[in-house]
């Protein structure tokens, strides 16, 4: 019965899923931080910081969408 359990694959699943889950949360949170902070900075007329936060949110959004596209590739390749 123990032979039926592939421990190596199970361990890979645990760390890869943890990494992917936290990466999803971090990327999307960076999008929100970037958007909210950029808006605050614009209101306070700090255009340099606003641009930097806007850039952060764009990069994080690209990363988040990249993860989503990878997910769709995984689904279609199943």
């Amino acid at each position, binding site marked *: 019965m123990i032979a039926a*359990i592939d421990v190596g*694959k*199970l361990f890979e699943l645990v760390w890869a899923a943890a990494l992917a*889950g*936290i990466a*999803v949360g*971090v990327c*999307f949170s960076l999008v929100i931080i970037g958007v909210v902070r950029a808006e605050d900075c614009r209101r306070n007329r700090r255009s340099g910081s606003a641009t930097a936060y806007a850039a952060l949110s764009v990069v994080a959004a690209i990363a988040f969408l990249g*993860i989503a596209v990878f997910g769709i590739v995984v689904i*279609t390749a199943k």
Partner: protein
Amino acid sequence: MGSDVILVIVVVTALAFDFTNGFHDTANAIATSVSTRAMSPRFAVAMSAVLNFAGAFISLKVAATVGSGIVDSAAVTTTVVFAGLIGAIAWNLATWWAGLPSSSSHALIGGLIGSAFAASGPSAINVDGIVETVLVPAAVAPLLAFVVAASTIGVIYRMVGSLRPGPVNRGYRLGQIVSGSMFSLAHGTNDAQKTMGIITLALIAHGNLPANSFDVPVWVIVSSATAIALGTYIGGWRIIRTVGSRIIKMDPAQGFAAQGAGAAVVLTASHLGFPLSTTHVISGGVMGAGAAKRLSAVRWGVAGNIAFAWILTLPAAAIIGAAVYGMCSAFGSGALGPLVVALGLVALLIAVLVRRFAQQRVAAAQ
């Protein structure tokens, strides 16, 4: 003539199972989104239904693996498949009635194990296959989703804790639309194919399709996709309420963490060839997102009932599957047994619906 009747009964029963699978598992994709008001209930079920329908057309690899490695293929007859399907449908309806999320796939596997056991004895069952395909994933999925969702919400609260809550909540609601869509697509790809696989196996057993290739006919793909999408659109609201608001009262960040972490776990597992139940994953994710904020935020009584239903799924569906096979066998090996059982179950369902309708009318009159 008799085998034609059994084939028609199996196809209709398989589509009925697909329908119950859809409405039973709607909660996996939309419960957290509805609970946090990321989407209106009507929009959420419509989106999930469309993506389940689309997902059913994406790949056919899962269809070829239904039941393989768990029951001896020589023991699988159309009557065994029929009895297994009835076991799965009965368990799906019972857990829906109780508002408990449980795995439709495990119910189907349980039903097939029970009916194959009743037909051919213990030699028809592959215990290693059950351990690898059902028991280990059932233990891993909720625990892993719990830990990943708890870690994710911990990181999220640290990152956005100092920001204004209004835009933050709006942001995570938007994120939930993406994670909910991924869940729905993955569900359609995975679960609709199980019905396709069963109908195709029945067509091969009946001689309508060649046994040396596993080509799923277009009408099977379209009907399976339609059945799961219709079931999803009807929505199993009792289970949606349980997952969305009875386990924890969640904010949009928790909903996103549960769903995002859940989608990441399901897709990572899929990528590694380690199929996990979306029901187990989302339930574990919701509990993890709640427990990370405060242990007492999780209603552990509800969580315990859900875990109990998971433990019971395989044996309960197996017992029903075996009993249905026994009833069918009592009428001989022809089509009469499945026909009598199917008609009996339809009559029972109509009686329950009529009684419920009458009770509602009495309640409305009072």
